[in-house]
């Protein structure tokens, strides 16, 4: 029974990690393309950028909704505490996503595109900024009482460390957005994004190194828990592997390869996630609340595994199918007529 009480929250920790990773990877390039659109000079280019996302953005964004619901059901305490502590950055993200979503559908039919261009670009930026602050605040820690309820204040989430995380996340999104555009476009547009990808790869790397040095969860908690065998070996491999991947990415960008930059970037994101997961586990709010404290009753977790768990391969299947249907370079109007 005791083993079960530990096993179920662990399963849900992994499932939530998967949902979050899928969201950050997939909507990450959507948001990255949105941020890049702010620098785009002409209407035709912006059209292509939005068309490259038109058929996938809402499924990508839905991973956030799936993750929100799963977090609510599996770890109600974490859902309640994190969201109420981070009211402002959460709504920053929501406002950003609202502007972006509406811009997608209305720009296509509008004669005055400028408003929707701003809504798309600025919305993407705001959403990424909000997400960065949420991520930064969670790994920095949230003040809670013994029952796990938030006891901090309104502006706790805002400091230079969370700003650093937010800016780095934006760089990461620009990187994955650029490599996605390299994959989906050609000609001058593609050339531009070879350049933006190189720039973003460097800034993301610098950001990641600074975060690792500056955030206590990495230099304190991680040192105590991970600098002893056998985790030490895993933990030693991750930064090395990370540097190798960045090198591979830069090399593929220099060689102007079309597909590999996107793949290397996804692997960098995945590695970052695994590293973050190893450092944070078994906490869901680092060094304050463990997944066992925050978990719903075992019956709820089992019930959700039955209903949500079996859907994961199905969701993955039809999402992949969608990407297969729309593979290849983008051109012209999305409606194909």
């Amino acid at each position: 029974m005791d083993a079960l009480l530990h096993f179920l929250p662990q399963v849900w920790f992994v499932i939530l990690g998967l949902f979050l990773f899928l969201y950050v990877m997939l909507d990450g390039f959507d948001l990255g393309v949105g941020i890049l659109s702010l620098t785009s000079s002409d209407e035709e280019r912006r059209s292509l950028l939005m068309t490259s996302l038109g058929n996938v953005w809402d499924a990508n964004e839905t991973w956030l909704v799936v993750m929100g619901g799963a977090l609510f059901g599996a770890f109600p305490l974490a859902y309640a505490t994190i969201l109420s502590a981070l009211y402002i950055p959460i709504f920053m993200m929501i406002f950003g996503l609202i502007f972006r979503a509406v811009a997608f559908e209305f720009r296509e039919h509008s004669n005055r595109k400028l408003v929707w261009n701003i809504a798309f670009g600025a919305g993407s930026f705001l959403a990424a900024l909000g997400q960065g602050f949420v991520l930064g605040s969670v790994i920095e820690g949230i003040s809670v009482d013994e029952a796990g309820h938030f006891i901090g204040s309104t502006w706790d989430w805002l400091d230079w460390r969370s700003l650093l995380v937010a800016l780095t996340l934006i760089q990461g999104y620009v990187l994955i957005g650029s490599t996605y555009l390299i994959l989906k476009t050609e000609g001058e547009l593609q050339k531009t994004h070879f350049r933006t990808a190189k720039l973003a790869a460097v800034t993301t790397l610098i950001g990641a190194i600074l975060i690792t040095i500056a955030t206590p969860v990495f230099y304190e908690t991680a040192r105590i828990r991970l600098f002893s065998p056998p985790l030490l070996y895993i933990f030693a491999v991750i930064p090395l592997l990370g540097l190798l991947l960045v090198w591979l990415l830069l090399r593929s960008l220099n060689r102007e390869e079309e597909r590999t930059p996107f793949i290397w970037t996804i692997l960098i994101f995945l590695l970052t996630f695994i590293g973050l997961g190893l450092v944070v586990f078994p906490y869901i709010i680092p060094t304050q609340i463990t997944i066992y404290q925050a978990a719903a009753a075992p019956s709820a977790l089992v019930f959700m595994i039955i209903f949500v768990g079996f859907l994961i391969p199905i969701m993955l299947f039809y999402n992949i199918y969608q990407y297969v249907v729309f593979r290849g370079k983008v051109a012209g109007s999305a409606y194909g007529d």
Partner: protein
Amino acid sequence: MVEILSNTVALSRMQFALTAIFHMLWPVLTTGMAIYLVIVEGLWLKTRNPDYYHHARFWSKLYVLNFGIGVASGLPMEFQFGTNWAPFSEAVGDFFGSILGFEGAMAFMLEAGFLGIMLFGWGRVHPVIHYLATIMVAFGANLSTFWILVANSWLQSPSGGEMVNGKFVVNDYFQAILNPFMVKSVSHMFFATLETSLFVIGGISAWYILNQRHQAFFERSLKIVLAAAIVVAPLQIYIGHLSAEQVYHYQPTKLAAMEAKWETSPAGQPADWSLLALPDESGEKNQWEITIPNALGYILEFKPNLSESVLGLKEWTPSDRPRMVGLIYYSFRLMSGIGFFLAGLMLWSVLQWILGNLASEKSIDKNGCYAPGFLLLPWATSLLKPVGLYAVWVGNPGHSMDKFARLMPLPISQRVTSSLL
């Protein structure tokens, strides 16, 4: 006014009401419209009449505009239980949160995952695959309705567990899903989405016909929705009646407010039904009212005498009564009024159809003007219908959160997140 601005509960309620009421409208339109898209695309595959193909393309563009706003306005709904109602989320997460999780994974993802193919997949996939995608979009949208109304009806009539130390512990998930309100609430909402979409599609078609643009084309959609409305409009009135009946049995406070009823009517006797009134909460009476003698028994149970007593608001202390009785009273009347109006409009339009007045070539008189002006009405009602929806949601869930708050040992109101201020 300043007091309200420093009261996190009042502000959170206002935020919830604003976001829920605004969000509400869009998924309702898309869910019903998705079924319409399944019908026209199916007709196209069967008959290969290009008109149906163009209908599928035309209405799917309207669909996606609604969908965009629905997705955008739905995001605060997903997260504000945590941001604004943290103790509530913690207390009911085991059930309520799981259901929201199912909705996302089972329903919403299905709709979003196939939407791209439905909108942009023409010519990229085989028509049968495309049709399957359209069906999946409609199926996903309607599954969303199901899970969201499971969550909502459970708030109206919590079951399948009990409160232990301030937390709802679920003993039986299926009993919680099949809570007393579930079947009727889901059906009422399902038909509301259908009816709204039918009348919006009909209204837009009528507007085009009236403006003499693509008349033959839009006559087709008008006839499809009219044929569907023959079933949907009366059925919705009947299901609405069943929903009111469950309020009668399970939520006497709400029924009393819906009827602005201050005094109890004992069982075994007939009672008057109030048609119009001006409720006065401080005076605990109606300033004036127009009643229909002995009608309440017929309305609730189709018989003259009540089998259970209908409690008046005075049975509860003022602090336990719903506030804004007048709003609840009139939103209920507005909702039922619109329901009957739409059914009447459907009957009249069908009559015109039978008389042969619906064909566009006949309905244009010598001056090129449109002869039977009745087609103008569906357009007007397509705007009215959402008002009916607003009415029912103003009368309904705003109250349900309060009810649930009362189930909890510590009132939510004292522990709402401090992060707002």
